[in-house]
């Protein structure tokens, strides 16, 4: 994954010779009446990838999607789609198609006419339109509903129509604006896998906006994490999860304990809340960048709990809270001798006896299970 999305001076170099990126965003800024929505965003979306824009609401991800689709024009910066400058091209002349948050199906047309809409505008022949619409309805599994109005369909079905309608015009880039947000959980999980399957089948580049980190992790080849109109980090789901560059990313993706260091790491040792622990090797080597290691991210599931622990960092603690998750249990514990709290998520074996609140236990972690953060 390229590093060009890092907040910093926008890179001006063109894409690698040969295959242009599906989307190249360079230094894009956008403000609405003084409120900055995008603050110098640069992103490369590789051709044929499933790319997610992930962030809390108000981070600018939807605005960025609307800049790519052409509904908003950037105040500064450039946008290339499939190697061509599209910064000032109106939406109807861009090789993009959008799946809207509430799907935006045309209520006065049936499913077939909705899907055929873009093709009719292109003056495609009747036979070809019919064949193409049939093909798409088969792709999304709606062959039997072609004569129905959108209002006669369930949410999941409407979502599929929106997808088929957007794919019908064979866009270079398919833009999806939180299309699963209004579906219930079970259907959402099913549609996630379905979207991924369809993306693999058609090979089109998908740019997917979501605030749901689980959704982004499940589907994406790459994720750009955004906050306050800036890109925080770009990487594969695993990179983002295992090597977050900031406390924000570490906290936003998955569940984690953020431990602040009392003073810089010295001789491979660090102090947290007055206690000394072994630091991760990376932090000992100086951490990321010049700022050094200022904090640690320690994922819930990497904290171990028990009477006998064979890891290098061990502390005595008391259980303060117990939460059942079915497949696992979360313990919130307080370390002895200081105010430091930790949350540990422990898989359930089915034969263990959960610790009650107030129980005295030991918690520990492998020094390298923690991630050094510069901020």
């Amino acid at each position, binding site marked *: 994954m390229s590093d060009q999305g890092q907040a910093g001076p926008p890179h001006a170099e063109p894409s690698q010779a040969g295959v242009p990126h599906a989307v190249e965003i360079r230094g894009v800024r956008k403000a609405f009446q003084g409120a900055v929505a995008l603050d110098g965003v640069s992103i490369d979306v590789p051709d044929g990838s499933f790319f997610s824009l992930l962030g809390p609401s108000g981070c600018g991800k939807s605005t960025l999607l609307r800049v790519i*689709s*052409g*509904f908003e024009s950037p105040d500064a910066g450039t946008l290339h789609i499939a190697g061509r400058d599209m910064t000032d091209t*109106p*939406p*109807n*002349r861009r090789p*993009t*198609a*959008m799946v*809207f*948050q*509430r799907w*935006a*199906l*045309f*209520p*006065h047309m049936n499913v077939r006419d909705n899907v055929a*809409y*873009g093709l009719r*505008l*292109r003056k495609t022949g009747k036979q070809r339109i019919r064949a193409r619409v049939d093909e798409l309805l088969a792709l999304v599994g709606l062959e039997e509903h072609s004569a129905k109005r959108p*209002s*006669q369909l*369930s*949410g999941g079905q*409407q979502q599929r129509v929106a997808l088929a*309608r*957007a794919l019908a*015009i064979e866009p270079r880039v398919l833009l999806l604006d939180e299309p699963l947000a*209004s579906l219930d959980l079970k259907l959402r999980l099913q549609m996630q896998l379905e979207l991924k399957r369809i993306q693999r089948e058609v090979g089109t580049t998908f740019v997917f906006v979501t605030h749901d980190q689980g959704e982004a992790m499940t589907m994406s080849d790459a994720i750009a994490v955004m906050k306050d109109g800036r890109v925080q980090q770009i990487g594969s789901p695993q990179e983002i999860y295992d090597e977050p560059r900031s406390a924000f990313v570490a906290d936003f993706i998955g569940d984690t304990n953020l431990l602040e260091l009392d003073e810089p790491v010295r001789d491979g040792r660090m102090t947290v809340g007055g206690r000394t622990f072994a630091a991760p090797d990376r932090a000992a080597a100086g951490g990321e960048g010049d700022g050094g290691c200022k904090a640690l991210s320690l994922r819930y599931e990497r904290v171990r709990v028990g009477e006998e622990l064979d890891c290098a960092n061990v502390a005595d603690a008391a259980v303060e809270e117990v939460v059942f998750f079915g497949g696992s249990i979360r313990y919130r514990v307080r370390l002895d001798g200081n105010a430091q709290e930790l949350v540990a998520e422990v898989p359930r074996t089915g034969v263990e006896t959960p610790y009650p609140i107030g129980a005295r236990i030991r918690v520990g972690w492998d020094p390298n299970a923690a991630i050094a953060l510069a901020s």
Partner: protein
Amino acid sequence: MASSSTFRAARVRRLILHVITALCVFFVLAPLVVVILNSFSSVSYNKFPPPGFSLKWYENIFQVPEFGNSAVYSLVLAALSTVLATVIGAMASYAFVRGRLFAKGLISGAILASLVVPKIVLGVGLFVFFAKIGGYGQLWSVVVSHAVISLPFVVTLVSAAMVGLDRSLEEASRDLGASPFTTFRQIVLPQIRVSITVGALFAFIVSFDQLESTIFLLKPGTETLPIALFNYTIKHQDPTVAALSSLMILFSVALVIVAAVLLKRGNAMEALRRTQESQK
């Protein structure tokens, strides 16, 4: 007992409400009933209730050539001004709801102003205006004047319908390759068709019934139906006017019923769509 006295108070309140409603309906309908009953009178002077029944005043309508000519003129005038008001009104509504207009409030205020300006004042103003620019007495100047008076009805109805439209539908259309004009025709228009039709019906009625503003705009010799009626009443007092008025009331009521049915069907469809959507 507290509960029974509250109950009685509610009943009294409802009774008062019913009485007021009945009085309102009575005062609106009574003049119309008098006109319609009188149109079947057997005598030529005004006497209510009429002493006998006859259809001679309806026959008499056709003996007065001014009525026929002016009716044709009024229908042509109403048709033309309706087309003008509807086209401009629909476009203006779209601009008000979707566009980034300079001085939007001022412009929409100006369009709606003809609702509150007394028609007779408007008529004098239009007369002076058209006399100055040279359109006095010509059909087109009356068409334009009636369109101005009808415009608020079209704009109010169509804007209300357009406010409820989901903007992302238009964006979806643009996104799939449609120009702004194609998007309006294919996506916006079908969804506001009912409101536009009803707006056009209102525009037609408003133009067809218009007297005060028109009276200044026409040269002697050309007449709209309301003006012909007015002139006839000055000379004659017989129930021919009542007969013709009854026909005009019938015509207007028919148009309003068509409008109401269309609106109701549109609303019902809209309501159905909304409930179905909210259930998901």
